[in-house]
């Protein structure tokens, strides 16, 4: 380490939120995840929010091409990636322009001054450079000629100037590592692994990162570094994990716990494709992944695998979910276990592929012909995606039913520390297949769960036919009998309704009764929990309940929603859970619906809650 030539003050902070922004080709997602990794390994609680355009490479320097990654890290427990960044790293004028509005007043801006050329300024719609015209005077601006300094650091390496420029994000990352006292070691290790076959890139990125760090240390533009102490997390071994990673690991774990082979078939769709990519790396578990010709084939093949006695599963997003509708109805009719992962995104139609929304609850609950009951579960945080992928399979196997698992783009791409469970903490998912021909009928049912037996082809003496036509109760032959049809409708409904006995009650955070309950599901959890914590500290009579089971609801849901004077249901949709809760429990719940394809901010929930409380 070089000797410091100027005094640097260290300031202790509880929580910092940084946003990295640049061209979609600038490597902002990698930069952000490396910073997150370093913060997580250091022991901070973290929460991240990547925000990238749907176009792989929009025109360089343009506003639509800006890609961002926000990370909040803290010495205490946090639930969200932060409402507004304290620090903005802007790699070009477009990145500055499109993110400046979110920065906290007086926040820090670090810009790559080399990118503020007349051409780039014009592309971003700046008449004059904001670095010169005084428009940033309310902020603490640090101009660094990143491109030039980085190129100098890489001199002598046999690389084109374009390749050299591709490492400048690591220079910026190095500066941030210095500012926040983070170790470069995890990133060095990551580089060694990623570029094992191309040592020159390891060296180049290493130099870029170290040069950025050294620049921060030796120049006089920073007079303070910031220290965010480790958070007090529950004991255990942790890793940083995104929702999609956690989902993939959960699905893998379910098949190991069930001791049945995993078959994951999927058609590429943002933001669910990473689950297919990741599971495809685990071939040595004997699992099979299948990229199908379309969304329908993907679920069809999964049903085929479940029919064969395996864990057939498929993953998609809203538009693909729409295509799978008829097949999901078939799975309801043949009563086979199946898990359908829907990583929701902005809609309707193609909508906003990379942006988050909670728009598919109706689709999951009702999006099929006739009355076609399907259990629905929804994790609340990226790390919870693991437990709920396992839980979805527990329900599917125990109750012989397809299950819809609703994640969303925010959970899928966001990350947080995950305490890795030990194998003895995981449930036993083994269920037997029926092999005894004595007294067998295809639609006989378990008296407790109403599940029908799972009989797989290859079992002698149990040859039978299943299919989409209505079946005669117990015997399972095709039946057009009107009373039988009514009975089968009741049985299918009752089978799913009884799952309520097999799931935990709805937990309330806060007083068991009072002025206001905020009821939520899915990824709005973090902002709502934070808002409620802070209102409770201010003495408000407010509670929060998070529904993780959306069909059936936990048995005590009606009691919970009736115990408060007001019920507020914030959702990133036009009021889907709201409609169901009002209809089912006849409570005058009100919605808070902002469908902007981004998560709620804590302050928005707080303001809304105060407003509702003020009316009492």
């Amino acid at each position, binding site marked *: 380490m070089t000797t410091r030539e100027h005094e640097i003050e260290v300031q202790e902070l509880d929580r910092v939120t940084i946003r990295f922004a640049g061209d979609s080709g600038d490597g902002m997602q990698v930069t952000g995840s490396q910073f997150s990794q370093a913060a997580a390994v250091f022991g901070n609680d973290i929460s991240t929010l990547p925000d990238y355009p749907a176009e792989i490479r929009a025109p360089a320097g343009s506003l639509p091409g800006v890609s961002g990654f926000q990370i909040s890290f803290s010495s205490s427990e946090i639930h969200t990636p932060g409402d507004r960044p304290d620090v903005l790293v802007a790699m070009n004028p477009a990145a500055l322009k499109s993110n400046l509005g979110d920065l906290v007043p007086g926040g820090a801006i670090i810009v790559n001054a080399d990118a503020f050329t007349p051409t780039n300024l014009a592309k971003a719609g700046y008449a004059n450079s904001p670095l010169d015209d005084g428009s940033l005077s309310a902020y603490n601006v640090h101009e660094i000629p990143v491109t030039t300094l980085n190129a100098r650091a890489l001199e002598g390496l046999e690389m084109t100037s374009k390749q050299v420029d591709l490492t400048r994000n690591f220079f910026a990352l190095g500066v941030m590592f210095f500012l926040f006292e983070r170790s470069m070691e995890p990133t060095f290790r990551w580089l060694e692994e990623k570029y094992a076959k191309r040592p020159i890139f390891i060296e180049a990125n290493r130099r870029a990162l170290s040069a950025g760090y050294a620049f921060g240390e030796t120049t006089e533009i920073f007079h303070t570094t910031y220290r965010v102490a480790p958070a007090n997390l529950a004991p255990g071994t942790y890793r940083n994990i995104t929702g999609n990673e956690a989902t993939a690991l959960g699905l893998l774990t379910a098949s190991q716990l069930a001791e049945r082979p995993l*078959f994951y078939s999927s058609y590429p769709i943002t933001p669910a494709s990473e689950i297919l990519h990741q599971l495809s790396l685990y071939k040595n578990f004997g*699992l099979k992944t299948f990229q199908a010709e379309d969304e329908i084939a993907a679920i069809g093949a999964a049903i085929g695998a479940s029919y*064969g006695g*395996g864990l057939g599963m498929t993953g998609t997003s809203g538009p693909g979910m729409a295509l799978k509708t008829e097949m999901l109805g078939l799975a309801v009719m043949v009563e086979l276990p199946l898990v359908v992962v829907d990583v929701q995104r902005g809609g309707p139609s193609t909508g906003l592929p990379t942006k988050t929304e909670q728009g598919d609850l109706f689709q999951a609950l009702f999006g099929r012909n006739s009355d076609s009951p399907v259990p629905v579960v929804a994790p609340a945080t990226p790390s919870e995606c693991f437990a709920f992928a396992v839980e979805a399979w527990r329900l599917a196997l125990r109750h012989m039913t397809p299950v819809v698992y609703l994640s969303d783009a925010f959970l899928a791409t966001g990350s947080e520390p995950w305490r890795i*469970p030990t194998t003895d903490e995981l449930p036993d998912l083994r269920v037997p297949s029926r092999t005894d021909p004595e007294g067998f009928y295809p639609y006989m049912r378990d008296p407790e769960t109403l599940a029908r037996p799972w009989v*797989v082809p290859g079992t002698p003496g149990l040859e039978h036919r299943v299919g989409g036509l209505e079946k005669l109760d117990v015997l399972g032959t095709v039946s057009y009998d009107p009373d039988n049809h009514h009975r089968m409708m009741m049985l299918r409904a009752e089978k799913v309704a009884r799952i309520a006995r097999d799931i935990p009650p709805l937990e309330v955070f806060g007083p068991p009764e009072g002025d206001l309950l905020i009821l939520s599901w899915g990824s709005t959890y973090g902002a709502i929990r934070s808002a409620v914590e802070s209102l409770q500290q201010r003495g408000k009579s407010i509670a929060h309940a998070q529904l993780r089971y959306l069909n059936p609801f936990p048995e005590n849901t009606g009691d919970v929603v009736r115990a408060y004077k007001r019920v507020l249901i914030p959702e990133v949709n036009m009021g889907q859970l709201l409609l169901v809760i009002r209809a089912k429990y006849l409570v005058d719940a009100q919605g808070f619906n902002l469908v902007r394809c981004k998560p709620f901010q804590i302050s928005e929930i707080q303001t809304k809650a105060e407003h509702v409380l003020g009316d009492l």
Partner: protein
Amino acid sequence: MSDNETQAAALADAGPIVLTKKDFVSDVDPRWCPGCGDYSILAQAQKVMPDFGYARENIVFISGIGCSGRFPYYMNTYGFHSIHGRAPTLATGLKASRPELMVWVITGDGDALSIGGNHILHSMRKNVDIKVVMFNNRIYGLTKGQVSPTSAYGQKTKSTPGGSVNYPIHPLVVALAAEASFVARSVDTFPEHLQETITRAGFHKGSTFVEILQNCNIFNDGAHREFTERDVRDDRMLFLKHGEPMIFGKDRDRGIRLNGVRPEVVRLGNGITEKDLIVHDESSEDSTIHFMLGRIYWPEFPVPIGVIRNVPRTTHDALLQGQIDDAIRREGHGDLAKTLAGGETWTVGG
């Protein structure tokens, strides 16, 4: 041992299985219209099913929607009557996860080539080891008589009272273009030919597509009659035999030869001999002549029947398993605890 391994081992230990047609007749009475061609197809399938040496429980019939879709109910094996056009998708997932099973897909011209067209293409090109048997009656029968993708141009149906404005698909050309490794055609009213074709399809390892010209006597009666009737069939159909010249006619006096790149019908004699005719090579890797056979049709040409293409290719399930075996050889068996703790971790003391 997993369930699958147990079953595979049981299958290997079991020795020769002796079954008869009766074993494959289920207790459900067929409910097709009297006189339907499907009855014959069912009977021939039940008759040859014992020949494959599979126990009943290791055979699965999967169908879509249409009159053909009822087929599985009548086979005393495992069966799955799925939804319109999608049978190949279920069959693909089943075969991929249970390679030891023999999987048949029963479909029709609307099911396979209209609503389910995409699945036929991809199950064939992936060489999924499923036997697709398509009943081609050139009409939508179950929905009572609408135009199908194989209906004739100009054909009047309930949905085309002014005549169909669409050109029909040539099913075998589609199968060939999709790289099916076994492609054949037969006729519902030719019991022996049908038995032989189903038998050969059953023994093929890989994606198998069999078109059966089938008569719907209610909504499209006689669709194939012009060339399948007993008194004309020899003159109007070409019975393909591997390694033999393409000769047809009651008197075996006509044949197909190439004139440049075009096929033409020639009469033997006057200097034209068998040597001038195309010799059928079902196992040729080059599929040019197979495409020609899939395309030529009555009345310009005799209608070819028999096995058109039959090439060995590694099956989809074997390739999938191969990747698993490679991964295990390379990395050892997957360790869940290790995988869960993958990447950078840190420990918080307790």
